[in-house]
């Protein structure tokens, strides 16, 4: 049986870094999965940008919970980078897990993305969310940038991009 779930590239930070970039992403796969385990040097949110495009071709809709209450909304025609979390400050001592699934990333239609973040800060604070993103571009995804609203990703942050084949 052929390998259908392959690591394209992986980065583990040994020093604080503001931007993690996956570029020249191969077109050899069907879908992409980005597994991002991170913490920051301050509480600002993690974000991502596709194809280095900061135009307003993005939209998203989310549901999120912070341990005591729920919220959700839809945001249209917004500029990249787009957020991975909504409301709760990112931790500086524990790690957040965000998983980004980009379906049909090389196709000629707009790109739909499923985002999931699990953030637990060791007490009764944190955030868990699921997000539907849309990137209204018909170009193949060849680059992903991970940034924060401000500040850097801290040492130990790990990002791995997987390619998933349908055959």
């Amino acid at each position: 049986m052929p390998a259908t779930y392959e690591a394209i590239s992986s980065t583990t930070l040994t020093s604080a870094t503001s931007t993690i970039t996956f570029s020249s992403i191969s077109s050899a796969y069907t879908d992409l999965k980005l597994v991002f385990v991170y913490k920051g040097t301050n509480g600002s949110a993690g974000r991502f940008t596709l194809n280095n495009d900061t135009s307003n071709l993005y939209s998203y809709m989310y549901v999120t919970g912070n341990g005591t209450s729920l919220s959700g909304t839809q945001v249209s025609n917004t500029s990249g980078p787009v957020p991975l979390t909504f409301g709760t400050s990112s931790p500086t001592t524990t790690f957040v897990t965000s998983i980004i699934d980009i379906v049909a990333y090389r196709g000629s239609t707009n790109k739909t993305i499923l985002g999931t973040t699990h953030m637990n800060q060791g007490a009764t604070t944190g955030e868990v969310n699921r997000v539907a993103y849309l990137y209204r571009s018909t170009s193949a995804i060849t680059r992903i940038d991970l940034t924060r609203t401000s500040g850097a990703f801290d040492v130990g942050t790990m990002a791995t991009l997987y390619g998933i084949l349908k055959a």
Partner: protein
Amino acid sequence: MANTYVLIASSTLTSTSSSVTFSSIPNTFTDLHLRGNTRDNSNGFTQAYVELQVNNSSSGYSFNLIRNNNGNTVSALAQSGTIWSEQYPAGSGSTATADTFSPFEYYIANYNSTNSISWGSFGVAESNHTTTEATGITAGLWTGAAAITSIKITASNNFAAKSTFFLYGIKNA
């Protein structure tokens, strides 16, 4: 290029069992992905849940979640000091919908870390009954400061026969 998504171990129950344990988990992967499809054998439509325990540790756990466990109300919850990592009702017992199982998954990233280890879980249940449908999304954290070498999954009562568990390892290279 090597296959990076590998089945480490699996278990399919042939009789009821209170828990399933995967031990001696190798450290050769980056992340772990646990997938299950389970049924609790508690009577009637009693809501059931799954506990996740690592390294036989009884401390250092916390979670926060979003869930709908009665078919119409979505709520948020956070707790610490517990191994109660995900909650969802499973179709169960002799008076519940027969042959109905509930899938769940845990994604445990960077499980060899000696810092705190975080994970996410997602589980659903549908029993054709107005008060036992469920969807649960959970963020969990364990501050045991050790690589994970064993995982124990415990039912709120007992897992029914035919419940299945699959543990996968994922490499980043």
